[in-house]
């Protein structure tokens, strides 16, 4: 498996800087799990952040700042120091097989454990979705989509950034063909219409910075169902 479509440098930098919302960060973290090349790039962007931490204009701490010394308890024991870029989460559960035997990368397992037990919503013929975070409006979103072979996702544009990462199967849109691990990055005002183009169901995760808007009559009816 070779990942062919990567996030832009701008997106990796925004992730390293901590300026992406949770939804888009989930998309990037999923890609990073499957792409060592981009993990190395994020580590380098973090080193740039470290250099900026070194050179930022310091602002004196309050006079009583060192009272923090009174709060020093025993440091945590250091069993096999985890690297800073991949902060260890509390015991992640083992990879569980989803319906088609698809194993979920660890970042996603924080949001969904079992794809077959999840409550998928009907979107359009052959397309179902699973909302991964129930967010107040105005925040970014992340959803899993299952698209039956040969089916098309309703055409849509969006006001902010839209990211898609393929977990299983493949889709094709104006930018090319995307398979497992590939990340599609679309800026606002790009309309696209991905089509699941292999013999198996396409499972992907899609995240948006701001609400999607659909074009065309049927998609306009579909949009509220997608809840974008």
């Amino acid at each position, binding site marked *: 498996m070779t990942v062919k479509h990567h996030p832009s440098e701008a997106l990796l930098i925004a992730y390293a800087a901590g300026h992406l919302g949770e939804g888009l960060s989930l998309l990037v973290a999923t890609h990073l799990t499957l792409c060592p090349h981009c993990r190395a790039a994020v580590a380098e962007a973090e080193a740039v952040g470290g250099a900026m931490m070194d050179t930022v204009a310091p602002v004196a701490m309050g006079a009583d700042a060192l009272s923090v010394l009174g709060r020093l308890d025993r*440091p945590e024991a250091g069993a096999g120091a985890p690297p800073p870029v991949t902060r260890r989460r509390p015991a992640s559960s083992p990879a569980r097989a989803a319906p088609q035997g698809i194993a979920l990368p660890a970042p996603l397992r924080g949001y969904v454990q079992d794809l077959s037990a999840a409550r998928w919503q009907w979107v359009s013929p052959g397309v179902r979705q699973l909302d991964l975070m129930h967010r107040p409006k105005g925040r970014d979103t992340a959803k899993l989509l299952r698209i039956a072979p040969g089916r098309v996702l309703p055409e849509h544009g969006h006001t902010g950034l839209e990211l898609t990462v393929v977990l299983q199967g493949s889709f094709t849109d104006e930018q090319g063909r995307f398979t497992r691990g590939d990340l599609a990055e679309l800026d606002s005002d790009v309309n696209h219409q991905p089509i699941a183009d292999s013999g198996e169901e396409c499972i992907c995760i899609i995240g948006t910075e701001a609400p999607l808007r659909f074009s065309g009559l049927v998609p306009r009816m579909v949009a509220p169902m997608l809840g974008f």
Partner: protein
Amino acid sequence: MMSVAVEGEALAELVRAVAERQDQTAFVALFEYFGPRVKGFLMRQGAIESEAEDLAQDVMLTVWRKAAQFDPGKAAVSTWIFTIARNRRIDVLRRERRPEPDAEDPMLVGEPEPSAEAHMATAQVQVRIRDAMATLPPEQAEVLTLSFYEDIPHSEIAERLGIPLGTVKSRLRLAFRKVRALVGEELA
């Protein structure tokens, strides 16, 4: 003044003293160096002073607790503390989670090039990154700096600078590639 490379190694020694001996004197030295920098960084990102003060203390307390997790072969101290500050800020100020890849994940696709990650972020290399950043054309340095300091989408950075989003992204691409190339060159 110490050279920055020596300074970086000295900082790593301090973290080790905290990890191995719970050395409070070493911690005070780290606190005095990084506390004001973390606070300045947070304020540069838009936090008000009292917020930045509290969060900087929280970050330094995390440094105390997690000192044993610091790996000097992986990252410079300033990079490690940058990631702690970033994560605490997301947790405390934005009240969100930060999804990250998990090094223990059986799904993790392995490292084909150990060189980049293993060598890039050490104390000495941090100095090279600073040098490399100093050689960037001003318009590239500007977008790179704003990308770290300003917690706004790149589209807003574009609006603020009065340039198209595509230009922001291409300047970032050029800046980041140049930093990576300069550091890689010197390592080779």
